[in-house]
């Protein structure tokens, strides 16, 4: 058996974990909407792209400093998600799931089109004050933008996790997710919590858009980040927030390892589809994902 290149594996895994935590952040937006409103938001990737365009536009066209641009993107996405829930999704309440799915799919294309119309087809940059010099930690070589992205993502996920589990609003959100009609009967204004879930998905998209946009550059391709969310979600379990984090990390590492080992063998491109192979395998073996909820059965 040949010696495994341990140092190479370690470097790839570390990068995978960093990128994976940024996937987890985007996946959180998706899980939130699914848990709270039973809707599947197929435009999550476009949300991220749109936020990226907002931030890039604010800094490149209007010349704002990076932090004002980021704040504007955040504010813009919250308002956007909030309005979207009110105008498009609320009238669809109680309709078949497919109606909401189609609406969000259509919305995704509308967002791509309008973003290109408004900001042009070129790739724009978000000038975060992060250097290019890689950060060396023992044998590891870590790009600073990935470190910042992972730190912000994990920080937000931890803060949100605390809020969701411990605060009264978090308890009410989980009550709505558990059973909407009973939540209503307990005096919870369910519509307000739907709006809150969408607004939070807006916040997540804004953070994701700024971070991913700074890393990859902002153009239509940024929306593809949203597609990576599907293997993340299926791995972790559609309705589990912890699952989104673990799923994100796994997808990040798998993607990074396949880029390092398989791509040179076949000439590249495997990192883009290996996570989906993994997703299909998980669907066959354990459809509810690693942390997904099985119905509680009492014995």
């Amino acid at each position, binding site marked *: 058996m040949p010696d495994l290149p341990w140092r190479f594996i370690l470097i790839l895994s570390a990068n995978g974990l960093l990128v994976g935590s940024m996937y987890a952040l985007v996946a959180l937006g998706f899980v939130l909407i699914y848990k709270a409103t039973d809707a599947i938001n197929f435009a999550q990737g476009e949300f991220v792209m749109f936020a990226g365009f907002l931030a890039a536009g604010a800094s490149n066209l209007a010349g704002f400093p990076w932090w004002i641009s980021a704040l504007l993107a955040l504010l813009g996405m919250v308002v956007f998600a909030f309005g979207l829930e009110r105008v498009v999704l609320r009238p669809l309440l*109680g309709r078949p799931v497919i109606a909401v799915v189609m609406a969000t799919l259509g919305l995704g294309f509308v967002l791509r089109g309008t973003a290109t119309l408004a900001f042009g087809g070129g790739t724009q940059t978000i000038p975060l004050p992060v250097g290019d010099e890689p950060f060396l930690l023992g044998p590891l070589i870590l790009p600073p933008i990935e470190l910042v992205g992972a730190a912000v993502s994990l920080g937000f996920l931890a803060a949100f996790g605390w809020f969701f589990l411990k605060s*009264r609003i978090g*308890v*009410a959100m*989980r*009550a709505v*997710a*558990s*059973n*909407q*009609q*009973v*939540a*209503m*009967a*307990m*005096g*919870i*204004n*369910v519509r307000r919590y739907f709006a809150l879930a969408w607004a939070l998905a807006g916040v997540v998209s804004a953070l994701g858009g700024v971070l991913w946009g700074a890393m990859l550059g902002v153009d239509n391709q940024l929306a593809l980040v949203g597609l990576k969310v599907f293997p993340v979600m299926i791995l972790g379990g559609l309705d589990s927030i912890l699952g989104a984090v673990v799923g994100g990390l796994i997808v990040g590492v798998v993607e990074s390892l396949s880029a390092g080992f398989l791509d040179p063998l076949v000439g590249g491109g495997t990192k883009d589809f290996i996570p989906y192979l993994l997703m299909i395998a998980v669907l066959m073996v354990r459809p509810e994902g690693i942390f997904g*909820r099985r119905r*509680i059965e*009492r014995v």
Partner: protein
Amino acid sequence: MLALNNIEVVYDHAILVLRGVSLQAKEGQITALLGANGAGKTTTLKAISGLLRSERGEVTKGSVELDGDRLDRLLPHEVVGRGVVQVFEGRRVFETLTVEENLTAGAHSRSDRRAVRDGIERIFSTFPVLEERRHLSAGYLSGGEQQMLVIGRALMSDPKVVLLDEPSLGLAPQIIEEIFDVIRRLKQEQHRTVLLVEQNASLALGIADHGYVMENGRIVLDGPAATLRENSDIKEFYLGLNEAGTRKSYRDVKHYRRRKRWLG
């Protein structure tokens, strides 16, 4: 006093479910609403709590009033805000939340954190078994414990009126006794108004002050619980007793008499 004045309920703009139901639940009393499956008891409760709309039903005629204020145009959370809370049949706990979180969710309409904490402790002193399970997911509780939890959860909003739907359904006799004892205490110690829907008529009339009987979306009979207990039709069809007071098998009731209709 909670009053329903001649209400009519229609589902999907087409199906008439309640036809001119009037009833009153007097303050500080237990009012029983009896009837067979499909008579419209649960629909009556949902008409009061505002939950009809989430099932594409609506009150098309008449009014629901609490102390003179109309409830029938309010959203469910606004009805809870007015002090009327419904406990569903079938022990619908928030399965993935812990016992304590279920109670916290029940107090959503109250903003005073201290009152919420005290409320939880009060529920725990009423149902000590819930305190032992406070950090357990509610989905893992036994049936009786879940029934206690949903009643406790409803009380967390400190309601004036509690609408209880089939609290005895599917529970062991000993547990039922315990639950009904709590219902009696809701009235005697906490002076709450209770509207109790039950299929088990003898149990319900045992603790109620007043009773109504529903069939096919109408009230067909009403009176003080003591009077209803002595009513021969009630005895025969709901209590399973014949004139002599001995138990009677439902099989012996002639087929054409099984679904007797009162013309109300």
